[in-house]
């Protein structure tokens, strides 16, 4: 276990180096969050009742999404991992007494968390002081806050275990671009990163909630904003655990198969 912690540390520290990128990111995310809210605001002028979420809930949702973007952005991948596969540098990683799956998983967690670390606090702080109803509010009660914390960790792990499948696919395709683009769009759309899931047609919703993508950012943020019933909370969190288990097992099996037929490129 210690080796994975050290591994986490070195990636986390090197991730913290990029402070200018963090400021730029914060600015972009404010602009993006603001624009999204203003767009919804224009729609809401027609009568708030025709929308599934109250505007205040929506504001909290959007700001949470922006603050924790680095944890859930599906289009972000660690180039180093893809490079190591396509260039053959993976040779070194394969001659370490480590489990490659855990090593890459840790690496991904570290990079994403180091990014979130630098960005979430300024965004949350400023968003809290915006005028009502554009501000972010606290979760409805203490219990929801606790459940939110557990759920965001689960959602984060589900996202990483899903992107692990895409990393591993590079063993088979060598150029990961195609699968990457496809997967990115699918995840972003079905996870509620583009439009929150409650806004989708009711007929689609049961399917969307059952997919692993809803277990990523949707569940924790819905718990945070309180747009979910108690029984739904239990159901979605159980689903998160199930998806996490399924994806990790699938990833490990795929990795095992990939390594058996791996051809280390070059030299």
């Amino acid at each position, binding site marked *: 276990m*210690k*080796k994975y*912690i*050290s*591994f986490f540390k*070195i990636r986390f*520290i*090197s991730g913290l*180096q990029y402070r200018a990128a963090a400021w730029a990111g914060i600015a972009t995310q404010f602009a993006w969050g603001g624009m999204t809210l203003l767009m919804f605001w224009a729609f809401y002028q027609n009568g708030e009742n025709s929308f599934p979420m109250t505007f205040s809930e929506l504001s909290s949702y959007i700001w949470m999404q922006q603050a924790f973007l680095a944890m859930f952005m599906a289009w972000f991948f660690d180039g180093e991992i893809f490079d190591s596969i396509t260039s*053959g*540098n993976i*040779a*070194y990683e*394969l*001659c*370490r*007494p*480590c*489990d490659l799956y855990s090593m890459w998983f840790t690496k991904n967690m570290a990079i994403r968390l180091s990014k979130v670390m630098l960005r979430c606090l300024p965004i949350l702080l400023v968003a809290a002081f915006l005028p009502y109803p554009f501000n972010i509010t606290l979760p409805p009660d203490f219990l929801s806050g606790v459940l939110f914390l557990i759920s965001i960790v689960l959602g984060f792990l589900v996202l990483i275990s899903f992107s692990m499948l895409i990393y591993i696919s590079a063993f088979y395709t060598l150029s990961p671009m195609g699968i990457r683009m496809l997967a990115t769009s699918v995840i972003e759309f079905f996870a509620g990163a583009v439009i929150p899931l409650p806004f989708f047609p009711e007929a689609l919703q049961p399917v969307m909630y059952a997919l692993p993508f809803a277990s990523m950012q949707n569940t924790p943020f819905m718990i945070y904003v309180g747009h979910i019933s108690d029984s739904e909370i239990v159901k979605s969190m159980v689903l998160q655990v199930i998806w996490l288990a399924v994806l990790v097992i699938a990833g490990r099996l795929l990795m095992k198969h990939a390594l*058996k*037929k*791996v*051809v*280390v490129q*070059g*030299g």
Partner: protein
Amino acid sequence: MIELKNINKTFKVAKRNAGFSEAVKALFHKEYTTINALQDVSFTIGDGEMVGYIGPNGAGKSSTIKIMSGILTPDSGECIINGYTPWRDRVKHVKEIGVVFGQRSQLWWDVPVIDSFDLIKDIYKVDDTSYKKTLSQLIELLNISEIIRTPARQLSLGQRMRCEIAASLLHNPKVLFLDEPTIGLDAVSKISVRDFIKTINRENKTTVILTTHDMQDIEALTERILLIGKGRILLDGTLTELKKRNSVHKTLTVDYSGEKLPEFENMATVRDLNGHAEIVINTDLLSVSEAITTISQKVEIKDISVAGETSEEMVVSLYKEFEI
């Protein structure tokens, strides 16, 4: 103890002719050719041995190293290193080996080298006391105390390679695989790398397997040589044996005064100009000392040198002989 028995490995390589229409065709139907990277490779290497593994590009050297370090799974055959089969007991096996790929880097690019070392220490679960001991030994022998606080990206190739080698030895492996460790290095770095390899082989009894194209590496380091070509082991012997086998010709370069050299029996005069002559002898027919005696009876020798075939020439003639 390293034992390889009848190792086979094939690769499938997609092939197509040049041109747009061929590229379109390849979208629907790909033609593969099978390349036999390794055929029936068998050898045994004892503990503490230092072995040079040579062969032209694409002969299968790196594939063998990759199989021995647990990265590649062969199609068939057995390989047992210190009691483990590399691809089956990968994690246990790799704890006891160190690998240096001369063309790749294992150091983390952005952080000082010492941070990479610390991480490797944790990855291999090396305890503090033995880590400190090994590290100080490596720092001294490789002369890297000045550079370990520098990020890897700012090191020169020679400096980096010394750090790479140190990184591969932090866990005190029993076996060290070096895949072209001196590639691209200048003369000084090459010599310091060679000296270092010699020292750890002698003092820590580390088994060393070295692939290289630099015959000076082989000459300076290894007694035993394995020659591989087209995926087969062609020769297994000592450097001197190989040299003897191939080089029966010696070239004498003579500076002399006095009358022009006459033709001698069993000596071929290649050049003879203004008291400077090159004579080739066949040592099966005439020994070097006999030749010198014969020449000195006729003329006054001012300077003489005897040259055999260099290792480079020997390898070239070996490659020719085996048509690889």
